């Protein structure tokens, strides 16, 4: 079973409106690369030109911020959930 990636609505429209995507990979980086291959418009919103996460987009693997758990190199397992949260400022 692959892992699930949850997108906020601001990014979902770049993935044909999907708020949840199945993805495969051994690490967070591989899972993110898997979805950006299928939805290239997502790529510049998820990672910078070096393939690293932006400081204004946060990745939570099973509800934990990956910056404190190995970053993009963190190992993922079948059934994991990767939640992507983008900074928004509306009020």
């Amino acid at each position, binding site marked *: 079973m692959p892992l699930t990636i949850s997108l*906020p*609505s*601001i990014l979902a*429209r*770049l993935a044909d409106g999907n*708020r949840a995507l199945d993805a495969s990979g051994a690490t967070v980086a591989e899972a993110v690369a898997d979805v950006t291959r299928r939805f290239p*418009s997502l790529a510049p*919103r998820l990672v*910078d030109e070096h393939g690293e996460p*932006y*400081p*204004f987009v*946060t990745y*939570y693997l099973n*509800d*934990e*911020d990956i*910056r*404190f758990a190995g970053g993009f190199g963190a190992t993922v397992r079948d059934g994991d959930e990767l*939640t992507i*949260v*983008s*900074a*928004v*400022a*509306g*009020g």
Partner: protein
Amino acid sequence: MRASLASPPSRSAPKPTLDREELLRYGRHLLLPEVAIDGQRTLKAARVLIVGAGGLGSPAALYLAAAGVGTLGLVDFDIVEITNLQRQLLHGTRDVGRLKLDSARDRLHDTNPNVKLELHATRLTSDNALTIIRDYDLVLDGTDNFATRYLVNDACVLLGKPNVYGSIFRFDGQASVFATADGPCYRCIYPEPPPPGLVPSCAEGGVLGVLPGLVGTLQATEAIKLMLGIGTPLIGRLLLVNALDAQFRSVNVRRNPLCPACGTRELRELVDYEQFCATSGGEAAGLDAVPQIEPRELAIRRASGEAIQLIDVREPHEWEIGRIEGARLIPLHRLGGAIPELDAQAPIAVYCKGGTRSALAVRDLLSAGFRRVWSVSGGILRWSREVDAGVPEY
């Protein structure tokens, strides 16, 4: 994680008593053992500052006033516009054109005349933030831009005031409690803001009118819990609200030991937040340098027969509201795929609603080798005001 209101300004005096009218008014609170008379007196003694009397600030202020918070400070400098009324419940149709603080004062006084209102009719800046925030027990962030959010965060960290955070976009909301004694701050989650133009504002991207009602009410709930020291506040958790799927879930956030505000504490004073947000993300989006064309100039040149291609990079549902005659719709996220179809030698004017998306499009076209390309300054809104009033504003 428990809240910390270590030595709030409101605790320097004995708690005020409740009169007969107040006992009756707050009767449903007094029945709650977690509130009771002592808690209600705590609320009466409390001083809460709400930054922004808009979508989030409206429900938060209404509920905090109704709950009997003794002193409510409001910071806002805006005028009520008709586009606010879809979600900003402090203001009504007859308030259009008034200062938001004036309509807020009237509405909140009607909700609860016992509440003392302190109105700060100013933009919160690095020069006044510490002075304004210092006198309050906690701050509720209802602002609508990244610069003020970082300002509120840093001021709260420096002063040791809890920052009850909320933000919204389209159907998604976020809420948390930052800057408590042991918890993380806004910078721990978002060390830097997105570059200008990357994340649209609600004015560009839209927001469900009910959403700030949900999130602002959550902020008011957290504020009351912090004041009363009850429950489990959203410290160390970021609540994610998804109105479309009716999902509420939280993720765990930690204090970042390298955070310059609450970690290393190298940030010892407030900075220039406009500049911080204008140059973030490594390379500023470069939108300021994008060639612009004034709506009137564009109209004159087209009327004189100049063959300027006009491209609308908004979404199809915005196109349905109104468009400039002769334009071709290519939504921004589809522009890359359409570039080979465009004539790189012909002049191109690109417009959107307000000028941000068109600037991004022009930047991309310039990178693709186009030379005679402009962003229509102020977008279709300015076109409507200055060239063709038959095109509706929205």
